[in-house]
């Protein structure tokens, strides 16, 4: 489940991490190594324990069992102010009674950095998040996206070993979120600090991170690059949470694929063929069915197909030549689905 790395390159190391809140086990044994300079995502539905893991790394929660190491040092029992990490909070947690500059300088002031250096570093941090000139504003006078960037500057100005981000883009609208995804990625490359962020948005995790850990029920289901997690999900949960799973199992698997087990094919790997008698290539598998629903979404169309063998499969087709008028008329049509065998993978249930 995890690969062991040499100590000097490990920014965060979790071993047997557990946390119970009364009878509820929020984190049920997590082992994880995060390398220096990595952009790492912890992905999972709400209640999967990812935020609790983040809070244990930051020091806001004490683990029930297990250890947290930062840069090779055991910090499991240390208070937040004794750890070389900083956090960007989901609600930003800017101090409302302080100006933007006072917010950003707060950590430096605590560390007794001289005033001149403090000013300079705060100005530089604000420049790096494109907020130069906002020093005198109060958080209440900023937009959501600007507050988010102040929170980033306030954390980064301390040059922590690891930056923790708790659903950093959750409160932003879609357009801004997409902009910030790119911006965060660039920022991380520039400053070279390890970014560890928590999200429930699979697209965000896939587009931004170097590696992803998928959480479910307090455990890590899979760790890997976005491509690995998406193309080769190791469990049914990962297949379903990261993208559409399109599961074929039991008798259907025997009928369609000729072997037992549980299999999955991503919607965009499937081709929709209207000619039911068209020849199927050597390396391909195919199955027939009926289109139950057509969802036109501009750039692409989603077809929901009920296979004759049983399972319901989603097919995603780029709208290269067709328009909504063409595709919506296809409901109730019988079709053949064709896919490359290499794109079907077996998953553990």
């Amino acid at each position: 489940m995890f690969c062991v790395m040499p100590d000097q390159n490990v920014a965060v190391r979790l071993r047997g991490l557990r946390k119970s809140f009364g009878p509820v086990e929020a984190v049920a044994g997590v082992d994880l190594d995060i390398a220096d300079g990595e952009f790492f995502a912890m992905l999972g539905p709400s209640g999967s324990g990812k935020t609790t893991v983040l809070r244990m790394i930051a020091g806001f929660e004490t683990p029930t069992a297990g250890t947290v190491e930062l840069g090779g040092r055991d910090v499991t029992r240390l208070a937040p102010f004794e750890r070389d990490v900083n956090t960007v909070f989901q609600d930003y947690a800017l101090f409302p009674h302080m100006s933007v500059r006072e917010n950003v300088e707060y950590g430096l002031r605590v560390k007794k950095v001289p005033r001149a250096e403090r000013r300079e570093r705060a100005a530089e941090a604000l420049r790096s998040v494109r907020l130069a000139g906002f020093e005198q504003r109060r958080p209440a006078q900023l937009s959501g996206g600007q507050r988010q960037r102040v929170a980033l500057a306030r954390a980064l100005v301390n040059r922590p070993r690891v930056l923790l981000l708790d659903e950093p883009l959750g409160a932003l609208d879609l357009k801004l979120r997409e902009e910030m995804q790119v911006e965060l990625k660039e920022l991380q490359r520039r400053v070279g600090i390890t970014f560890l962020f928590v999200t429930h948005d699979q697209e965000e995790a896939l587009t931004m991170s170097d590696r992803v850990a998928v959480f479910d029920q307090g455990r890590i289901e899979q760790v890997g690059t976005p491509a690995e997690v998406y193309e080769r999900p190791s469990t049914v949960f990962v297949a379903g949470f990261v993208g559409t799973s399109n599961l074929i199992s039991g008798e259907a698997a025997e009928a369609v694929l000729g072997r037992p087990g549980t299999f999955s094919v991503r919607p965009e790997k499937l081709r929709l063929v209207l000619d039911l008698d068209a020849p199927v290539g050597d390396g391909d598998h195919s199955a027939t069915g009926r289109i139950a629903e057509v969802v036109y979404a501009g750039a692409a169309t989603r077809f929901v197909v009920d296979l004759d063998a049983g399972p319901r499969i989603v097919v995603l087709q780029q709208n290269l030549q067709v328009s909504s008028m063409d595709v919506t008329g296809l409901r109730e049509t019988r079709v053949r689905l064709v896919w490359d065998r290499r794109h079907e993978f077996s998953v553990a249930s």
Partner: protein
Amino acid sequence: MDPGLDGDQGLSTAAASPPGTPRRAGLRRGLAAGLHRHAGARLALLLSAPLAWLGVAYLGALAALLVTAFWSTDSFTGELVRTFTWANFQDVLTVDVYRTVALRSLGVAVAVTLIDVVIAFPMAFAMAKLASPRAQRWLVIAVLTPLWASYLVKAYAWRVMLSSDGLLGWGYGLPATIATLAYLWLPYMILPIYAGLERLPNSLLDAAGDLGARGPRTFRTVVWPLTFPAVVAGSVFTFSLSLGDYIAVKIVGGRSQLIGNVVYDNIGAAGNLPFAAAVAAIPVLIMLVYLAAVRRTGALDNL
């Protein structure tokens, strides 16, 4: 919709309504619709009774007090003389006894307020930030319960505790008065601070710790500035209640006198209502000065 159905929902059944009901319901509905359209009428309807109460009972009484303070009593017959005079205020300000009493009362009110802040803050913090939701409910009830008990019973309980052979054995006097008043008004300090801390997001405390601040600095730079308005709200209660008290000091104060006693004695034994009014104006004046000072700090802007 059946017009008989809205109106009295719940109690009477629509089917049993007498034939006249639909028209009355229609009228009521017309009234409701009219109110819905006229926000001003709605506001007037809601505010007229409370505002009348405030205007007559509160401002009216204050005005009457102020007017009375400029009258005097005939020294032989003891009857009211309704002619304007500054004499009462001159006496209050120039006679040493009254100045001493006024300053003593101010000192007591300040001491009670400070003691209550010091006791209430940790308590409110534990309630708002550390206790489980269940424990929180119980603690709120625990803070409120003493308010249900009679003032006199509580004051006499302290008298028993403070008597020279009692649990504390301090004897009676000003310290005893301050302790008793601090106890009596404590809930009025805890509850506003508790409410203020409830509104303070936990993430701000986490953020301060995350940026390297230990407890004391987090308190000084984040918690205190953001809950100061709540402390002020509480202090307005403890301060004004202490300034006006005359019963606790009678029970545990030994021979000490506060402004309240002077007012009471002048109304009762001496029968000098105008002088009592002039003395009673002192706490009102002190409160006005206090509120103005608090306003200048900007603490009330966030209320």
